[in-house]
C-alpha cells in the first residue's frame, strides 16, 4: 500500500477543494435559480404540443413556440394556424377554454398552365436553378412574363413535401392531401402564381397574365385573353367572375362553383377542381381504413 501512504495525508486537501467547489456552485446556482427563474404558463407547453410544429410562420409569429406563447398571453386568436386547420384550432381552444367557430380548410392553387406544350421560352437561361434568380434575369426565360419559371423553388420550399414537379409539363403540382395551406410556396414564388384558397371553392382562373388578348395569344395557348365569356355565363346575380385588367378573377365569396365558366372558356384557362377533390374525398376514408 505504498501509493496509499504517499497520497493518504493529502487526501483531506483534495476532498476539501472539490467539496468546497461543489458547495459554492450549489449555493450560487440555487440562488440564481430563485432570481432568474422564469415562470411559464403550463398551458403554453400544452398548446405547443397541439400545434403541428412546422414552424412555417403562417400564423404571423416566429414559429410554433412563439405562437403558443402569444395564445397563452391572450395576444393571439387560437385559429391562426393554417397547417393545423380546424382540428388544431379546436384542440387549442379546448386547452384555453374557448369555443372555436369552424374554419374552412384551405389549399394552395397554382395559377399557371404554361406547360412545355402550351408555351415556350424567350431565351435559354443557364444561371442558378432557382426561380427567384431566374426572375431577376430579364423577368425570367419564359415567353409569358407572368408565367411559371419551373425551377422548383416552391417544391423545395414546401415544409410538408406537398408539392412535386411534373417532368412532363415542367409545372409544379400540389398534392392536396398533404397540403396544409401554410403559404410558404406562395411566399417564395417570385411570380406570385400560387394562391392559398378555400378548399370548398372548386373553380379558379389558372392564369396570371394581365396583358391584352393578342399579346397573351402570342405567348401561351391557355392564357386568359379577357374575352368576357365567363362573365356572361355566370349564373350568380351580379356575377362571381369579373374581368379586371385583362384577367378574369373568380370571387371566392360569391362563387357557387357551378363550373359553367370553366366549360365555356375558349382557351381552357379556368380550372375546375370538383372531380379531383371528390375523388380525393372518396379515397381518403379508404386510405385510413388500410
Amino acid at each position, binding site marked *: 500500500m505504498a501509493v496509499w501512504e504517499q*497520497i493518504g495525508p493529502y487526501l483531506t486537501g483534495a476532498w476539501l477543494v472539490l467539496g468546497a*467547489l461543489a458547495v459554492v456552485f450549489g449555493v450560487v446556482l440555487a440562488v*440564481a435559480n430563485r432570481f*432568474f427563474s*422564469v415562470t411559464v404558463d403550463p398551458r403554453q407547453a400544452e398548446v405547443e404540443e397541439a400545434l403541428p410544429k412546422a414552424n412555417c410562420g403562417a400564423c404571423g409569429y416566429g414559429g410554433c413556440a412563439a405562437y403558443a406563447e402569444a395564445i397563452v398571453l391572450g395576444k393571439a386568436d387560437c385559429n391562426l394556424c393554417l397547417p393545423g386547420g380546424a382540428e388544431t384550432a379546436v384542440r387549442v381552444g379546448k386547452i384555453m377554454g374557448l369555443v372555436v367557430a369552424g374554419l374552412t380548410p384551405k389549399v394552395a392553387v397554382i395559377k399557371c398552365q404554361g406547360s412545355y406544350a402550351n408555351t415556350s421560352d424567350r431565351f435559354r437561361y443557364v444561371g442558378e436553378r432557382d426561380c427567384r434568380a431566374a426572375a431577376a434575369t430579364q423577368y425570367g426565360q419564359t415567353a409569358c412574363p407572368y408565367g411559371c419559371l419551373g425551377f422548383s423553388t416552391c417544391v423545395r420550399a414546401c415544409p410538408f413535401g406537398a408539392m412535386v414537379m411534373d417532368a412532363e409539363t415542367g409545372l409544379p403540382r400540389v398534392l392536396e392531401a398533404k397540403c396544409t395551406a401554410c403559404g410558404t410556396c406562395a411566399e417564395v414564388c417570385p411570380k406570385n402564381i400560387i394562391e392559398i384558397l378555400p378548399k370548398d371553392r372548386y373553380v379558379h382562373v389558372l392564369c396570371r397574365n394581365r396583358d391584352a388578348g393578342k399579346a397573351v395569344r402570342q405567348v401561351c395557348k391557355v392564357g386568359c385573353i379577357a374575352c368576357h365569356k365567363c362573365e356572361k355565363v355566370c349564373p350568380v346575380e351580379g356575377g362571381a367572375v369579373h374581368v379586371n385588367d385583362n384577367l378574369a378573377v373568380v370571387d371566392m365569396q360569391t362563387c357557387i362553383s357551378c363550373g359553367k365558366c370553366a366549360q365555356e372558356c375558349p382557351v381552357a384557362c379556368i380550372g375546375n377542381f370538383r372531380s379531383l377533390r371528390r375523388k380525393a374525398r372518396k379515397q381518403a376514408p379508404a386510405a385510413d381504413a388500410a
Partner: protein
Amino acid sequence: MEVGYIELAIGSILISNFILAKFLGFCPFFGVTRKMSDSIGMGLAVIFVMALASAVTAALYRHVLLPSSPEHANVLALAGIPLPPEGLVLVLKTISYILVIAGLVQFVEMVLKKSVPALYRALGIYLPLITTNCAVFGVALLNTEAWRDPNGLPIHKATFNGFCGGVGFLLAMVLMSSIRERLAESRIPKALRGLPIAFLCAGLMALAFMGFTKLFGIAV
C-alpha cells in the same frame, strides 16, 4: 518569459485558432454553422463562457492547486492543510476545471433564459453542450500550462486569452457559416452534399490557417 497581450491575441485568434489549428470544438463548428445568425450567437456565448471560465480556473490554479510561492499564497496551506510538495495540480486539475465550467454554463443558461429568451431559444441544445465543449476546457488547461508561465497565466491575462480564444472561435464560425450558406445554393455531387463537403471545407480552411504559423515571429 512574460507573454504580452498582443502576442496572446494574435496567438489565440489566428496562429493557434481553437477550431482551425487545434481542432477543438468541432461539435458546434458543424452543428450551428448552417445559418450565419445562429453561428454568431453561439460564438458570442462561447466568448463569454471562455473568458469567465479562464478567469475562474486561473484563480483556482494559482490559489488552490499550486503550492505557495513568494508571488501567491495557497489557500489550503494558509488553513494548515497538508499539501504534497508539487501541490494538487496533477490530482485535481481536470476534475475541478470541469466542475467550474459546468457550473458556469448552468449559470449562464439561467441568466440567458431570463434576460435574452430569443438568444436562449436560438442556441437551443448547443448552450448546454458548451459544458462539454473541449475548446472551453482546452483554453482553461492551456492557460495554466507550465510552458506559458511557470505559475500559469496571471488571472487578467488568462481572462484576456480566454476572450481571444472565443473571438477566434467566433471568427472560424462566421467564416464557416458564410461558406456553408453559399454551399447550400450550389450544385454539389450527391455523395458530398451536407456534412461531407463541410468537412472538406474545414480541412482547406485549416490548411489556410497554417499559413499563420510564426506570424510576426510569435511562437505559440
